[in-house]
């Protein structure tokens, strides 16, 4: 075990890369979740159809293959991405597809009364969603986003297959150099678990912040 821990600078670097992939992937996923999720409830059929195609494509095919496609196939057509970008796009687009379902579900969960109240105050469609519906939908989607964030963090391990030196890649290096198999993987298993635990805590804090002073699900009832 000490042999493995002697590689700590590398392990730390790998952890940082994994966190980077997670944070960047989460940003991409978040943006896509909202764009695709809100497109699903667009009044325009073409936009709704495009969103469904996106969702079904990314949900219905392997994230690993998508990443290989972006990193190995697109260059054949003259489109180049560095490994980190390819990994972030693949992970973000994938998790974004699931996230869009959370956005759509949460927006649809906001009571019909809120739509009517907005109309009675003469809010435009944009103003209604921006100031009334989405602020109430966000606390509803946060728990699902939390789960997806953990999924995303674990998914970043596939990036080790396109030369990114994340935690998993580092474990492979250590394995080759020390001829140990159990120890390096045990160490990164624990590190992944710690990162996930921290993410859960962060999401809890965010959830608290968004629900402060509010009782969104039950308000409107007597």
């Amino acid at each position: 075990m000490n042999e493995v821990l002697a590689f700590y600078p590398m392990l730390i670097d790998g952890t940082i890369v994994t966190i980077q992939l997670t944070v960047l992937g989460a940003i991409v996923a978040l943006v896509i979740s909202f764009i695709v999720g809100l497109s699903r409830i667009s009044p325009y059929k073409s936009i709704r159809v495009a969103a469904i195609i996106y969702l079904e494509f990314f949900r219905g095919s392997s994230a690993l293959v998508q990443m290989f496609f972006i990193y190995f196939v697109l260059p054949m057509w003259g489109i180049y991405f560095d490994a980190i970008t390819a990994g972030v796009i693949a992970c973000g687009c994938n998790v974004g597809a699931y996230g869009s379902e959370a956005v759509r579900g949460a927006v649809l969960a906001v009571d019909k009364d809120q739509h009517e109240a907005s109309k009675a105050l003469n809010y435009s469609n944009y103003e209604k969603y921006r100031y009334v519906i989405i602020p109430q939908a966000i606390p509803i989607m946060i728990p699902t986003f939390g789960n997806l964030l953990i999924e995303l963090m674990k998914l970043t391990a596939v990036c080790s297959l396109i030369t990114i030196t994340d935690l998993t890649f580092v474990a492979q290096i250590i394995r080759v150099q020390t001829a140990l198999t159990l120890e390096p993987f045990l160490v990164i298993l624990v590190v992944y678990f710690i990162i996930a635990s921290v993410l859960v805590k962060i999401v809890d804090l965010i959830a608290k912040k968004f629900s402060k002073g509010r009782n969104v699900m039950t308000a409107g009832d007597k």
Partner: protein
Amino acid sequence: MNNIIQFENVSKSFGDLKVLNKLNLEVKDGEKLALIGPSGSGKTTILRILMTLETIDDGFVSVNGEYLWHEKNNGKIIPASENHLHKMRNHIGMVFQQFNLFPHLTAIENVEQPQILIKKRTKPEAKEKAEELFNLVGLNDKKDHYPHELSGGQQQRVAIARALAMEPKIMLFDEVTSALDPELVDEVLTVLRKLASDTDTTMLTVTHEMNFAREFADRVLFFDGGQIVESGKPENIFSNPAEKRTKEFLKKFINNVN
């Protein structure tokens, strides 16, 4: 005085159920109207049509001298566009049975936000107006509470303040006390009585509070089966109804009437 609201042969069905059947109705500017009648008689539908929450199947509705659900385009009358409806909604405000406050905003933010967005008031202007209205509805000490921290009666008073802040020509009150516990009904009705006597806003209220209807209204309409069965001054309708159906309906409320 001119008619600020006019329904001409308006029909509306929900599936097979005809809620309004060639309804004709005129409301004068500044008039306070109480709509009474059994459930499902179409009273609430009238308010919802005026607030553009329900479309009409047939006929014409005019508000402030303009068609609500139609507009003129090169001399032809066509169904109203969203732009037209947006313009027309500025004349009208509505208070709902279930209050429908925005739960993620405090009471005062509920009243400020629509002013800032729709009336293009600055934040200080909106705040000043909101505070004035909280005074009117007697909620000065509750303005920083979230809706779920308020009682039903308080929430409904915030909702009234929110609608008033938009300064509509016409206010619609849809069974605003029906969702309240009995002991909270009076605090809301008191506000409405004050509004009725102090302002020249046209008000239409759907209510099951007969005592209130009698004091509040210049004119009472009794609805049944999508039609106005009887219309007249409250003292006539309540003390001496002409129609058999009105008599039967009021009999059920006899304890409230006397």
